[in-house]
């Protein structure tokens, strides 16, 4: 009985609040940085060629076999402009088949492929599914045009920790800083400066803290870290 009044009050309160609806096609939520759209290739602006060398490791690890890659000799290497001896020749990804597992990004040795973290990575409706087979120009287009501003790449060492040669903490921090500079255009001198780490808004230091925590158990296999011991016990 009193619940009736309570129910009426609840709906009035709800009506007074701002509607939560986002009018999707005209108004879009900001995607999270780690949003996992369909994979695209990255463009190396320093040399003006793709990062991808066509090594096919992504195609071999792809669980749904959606990729086809071929490589060729790099003309830029012959001209002395590039360090890459081989470069990608043709690259096809069947977006209709891709399951966005992120494995191609994890196994790539050259950070050449990323999961698209913009709306273009998910708004891919087509009338014919053949049109979802992307070729090399289509895969490179977004990165090349500068539309893929901040691609998310796992910091070096995390994804590779299973098989890549291990780095010690200092090396790792340096690699992290270099990676952050390359991808975000900032150069945090990561864990050394206390002011930087105290600032919660700085993206890279926060990331490097998380990285440092993950790195500790590997470095402290001997059991010298009490925090890790406590967690394990």
């Amino acid at each position, binding site marked *: *009985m*009193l619940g*009736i009044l309570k*129910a*009426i009050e*609840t*709906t*009035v309160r*709800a*009506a007074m*609040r*701002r*509607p*939560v*609806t986002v*009018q999707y096609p005209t108004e879009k939520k900001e995607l999270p940085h780690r949003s996992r759209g369909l994979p695209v290739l990255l463009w190396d602006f320093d040399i003006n060629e793709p990062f991808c060398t066509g090594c096919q490791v992504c195609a071999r690890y792809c669980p749904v076999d959606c990729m086809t890659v071929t490589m060729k000799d790099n003309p830029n290497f012959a001209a002395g402009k590039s360090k890459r001896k081989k470069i990608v020749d043709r690259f096809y990804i069947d977006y209709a088949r891709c399951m966005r597992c992120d494995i191609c990004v994890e196994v790539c040795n050259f950070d050449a492929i990323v999961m698209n973290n913009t709306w273009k990575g998910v708004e891919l409706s087509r009338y014919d599914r053949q049109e979802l087979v992307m070729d090399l120009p289509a895969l490179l287009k977004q990165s090349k045009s500068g539309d893929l501003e901040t691609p998310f790449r796992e910091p070096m060492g995390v994804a590779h920790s299973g098989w890549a040669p291990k780095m010690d903490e200092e090396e790792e921090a340096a690699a992290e800083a270099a990676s952050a500079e390359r991808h975000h255009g900032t150069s945090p001198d990561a864990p050394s400066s206390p002011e930087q780490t105290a600032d919660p808004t700085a993206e890279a230091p926060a990331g490097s803290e998380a990285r440092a925590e993950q790195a500790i158990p590997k470095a402290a296999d001997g059991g010298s870290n009490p925090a890790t011991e406590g967690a394990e016990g």
Partner: protein
Amino acid sequence: MFLAFVSDNPWLEAIARMAVIALLVPVGVIMLTWLERKVIGRLQMRLGPMRVGPYGLLQGFADTVKLLTKEDVRPHTADRWTFELAPFVIVVPVFMAIVAIPFTADLFIKNLTLGLFYFVAVSGLSIVGFVMAGWGSDNKYALLGGVRAAAQLISYEIPLVMALLAVAMVPQSLNLAEIVGAQADTPYIVYQTLAFLIFVIAGTAELYRPPFDIPVAESEVVGGPTVEYSGIRWSMFQLGEFVSMVLISILGSLLFLGGWNWPWSAFDESVPAAAQIVMMFLKTSAFIIFFMWIRGSLPRLRIDQMMSFCWQILLPFAFLQIIINGLVLVYDWPNEMMILLSGAAAAGAVYMTYRAARLSGVRYQPGYQRVGSVL
């Protein structure tokens, strides 16, 4: 000249007036479906329709076009004529009831002396349509819904009519225009609080809108009598439902809120017709929004709760209101006495419902032997 010719011939005039109604009312209903979706949306922190036209204003028209172009399916085993005529049996009485409704002091289709009586008599006919739809569909859910509709509508018709009768006792007239004219200084919601409460509750049940949507409950009888209908026949059910809602709202604002009277019309008789229309529109809209608001707030009643609430609370208190009115009028007690008694009775009705709802979970206690009763 043409207008003069039309108004000279009573048949032509009647046809012209009905044509205006038949054209205007569906457009109004189309806008009401839009409004309902908007209001419910806002109550749930959504926006409601936004795409078709500015703020989705044309959504109702798009839906209408869709409904009109859909296939009109009739089940193979349906009773053909019962099935096909049922929507008309629902819609026609609703449109007939519009005839008696005055919109301002001078704007009406027909100023009937027994307008209230006519309204009640005609609008009660649409029950037949529901039973026809339920029976003719040859579908067990439709039949269940039809029987539920018959039970609910007939039950709630009684307290509704008693409440209306109680109101009609005060101005001693069944002419709707006269009833409104008698409320120039005070609307009857003040004198007849109990009757107003009963009217709103029984009116909601008459419209089978939530929380009284038991005959058309989607989760119980998958839409009830309308389950086998599609296309234009289904939209006729919707049309009937929305027009009845407007009619009950207009009736409520005429009988309880003072109709087209502005607060100062007791002192100044000459309120312009446009202002009267605005006032009617505001009061009717308040009722309609209230019905939509209730729909967005309350869950559906159980069928036994619905029935026992009607027979054990609404009906006795409706009679109580009539008795109060009779005493006050016969013995010429002052009007304040009517306010006092009706208000006290309304408080009593609210308390009885509260007590019943509180005790409904308590079972087999020595003091409360009548389990299953709300009293």
